[in-house]
């Protein structure tokens, strides 16, 4: 062990890691989670549909994107699809695309479990009042299912934030990509990657704090 830890180096790279790394990682993850939530809701509704082909479509989606590595999905979206459909990929778009589509599959399972945990008497009560399936879903079932889904959604947010580091493979300079770049120029490996790890930890812990807070707020007004 003749590696000498240099605090100076940490202070030197920290602003860059935050400004270019953390900010990009947070943006990337937040946008992807939002799009993923919308995708997840649609896929969950497909999966619980009474029409078999729609169920299959939803199942195929979740099976494929949960059953293959995210890294492979990123490569397919950024390198393979452009070859087939003949367009120039944009790193940002590929990254957000891959993360949203992947997270949509996990969110779909979260919503599906949430929806199915709601007593079926709720839907029946809504339908018996003359509501359409869509109205009963929207006003009665989904609000309750969403509330139940908040803790697992928080976990999904955290998982995605960590997985977002994989997009550096296509050249996006998020926290991991920026770290790699720094190490390429000045090989202070330990300082750089440990600092990155601590920054990831701070982000994930902040999210779980936020989720627990949201949960408590909802519990305070819990009526079920």
């Amino acid at each position, binding site marked *: 062990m003749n590696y000498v830890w240099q605090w100076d180096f940490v202070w030197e790279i920290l602003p860059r890691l935050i400004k270019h790394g953390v900010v990009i990682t947070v943006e990337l993850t937040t946008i992807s989670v939002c799009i993923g939530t919308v995708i997840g809701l649609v896929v969950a509704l497909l999966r619980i549909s009474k029409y078999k082909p729609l169920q299959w479509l939803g199942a195929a989606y979740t099976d494929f994107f949960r059953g293959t590595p995210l890294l492979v999905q990123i490569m397919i979206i950024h390198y393979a699809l452009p070859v087939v459909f003949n367009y120039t990929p944009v790193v940002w778009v590929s990254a957000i695309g891959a993360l949203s589509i992947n997270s949509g599959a996990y969110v779909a399972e979260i919503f599906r479990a949430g929806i199915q945990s709601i*007593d079926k*008497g*709720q839907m*029946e*009560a*809504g*339908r*018996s*009042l*003359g*509501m*359409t399936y869509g*109205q009963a879903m929207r*006003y*009665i079932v989904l*609000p*309750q299912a969403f*509330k139940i889904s908040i803790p697992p959604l928080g976990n999904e947010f955290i998982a995605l934030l960590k997985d977002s580091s994989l997009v550096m493979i296509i050249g996006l300079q998020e926290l991991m990509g920026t770290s790699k770049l720094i190490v390429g120029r000045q090989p202070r490996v330990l300082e750089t990657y440990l600092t990155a790890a601590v920054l990831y930890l701070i982000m994930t812990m902040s999210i779980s704090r936020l989720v627990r807070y949201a949960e408590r707020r909802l519990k305070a007004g*819990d*009526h*079920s």
Partner: protein
Amino acid sequence: MIIVKNLSKSFGSLQVLKNITNHIKEQEVVVVIGPSGSGKSTFLRCLNFLESPTAGEIIIDGVSLTDKKTNINRVREEVGMVFQRFNLFPHMTALENVSLAPIKVRKMPKEEAMEVSRQLLKKVGLSDKADVFPAQLSGGQMQRVAIARALAMKPKVMLFDEPTSALDPEMVGEVLTVMKDLAKEGMTMVVVTHEMGFAREVGDRVLFMDEGSIVEEGAPDQIFSRPQNERTKAFLSKVL
């Protein structure tokens, strides 16, 4: 008001309703009794198409439910249902529970729906509970909110599926009182219940169901005092 012709319902290979025919008149209060598993709930749920019949026809107020062209949501607006387990919406206050359907289905202006709903909560004796969530209500109060919720759609018929079976005994009376008032106002009602006192007092006609058929029917007095069918006699001897 409600015409049921040769209604049958099967779940897979299990035939739960067997060729039921009946005619429920306007303002009539029909009480359905019978052993557990005899198909009472299924019969009631067919009347608002929560279960779709396997065969037969149901006509409510001139509209055939079994006709493919019928918009079942429009029919359900006219047929209120009260469930054994209340099925109140836990994320909404009592007032919101009652006003939701008038606002979303009847497209009633919010102010008007709130006013109508307050009146209905008053009618079931729960004016002071308008802004309370179901979790803070007793079983009897929840069921009264559920009745108000169904009434908010101004239905022509009300279906009750064992509305007092999930209640502690001391709360049964308050729910039955509300139902008696409804009957007095001339509401057409189909009530599945084990409350034989209610059946005698309020019922115009009693249907005794067993193994998916209406085995015997008649005026309450006739069914309870002079049952003809052996199965009716056996059932009544256990519950009376």
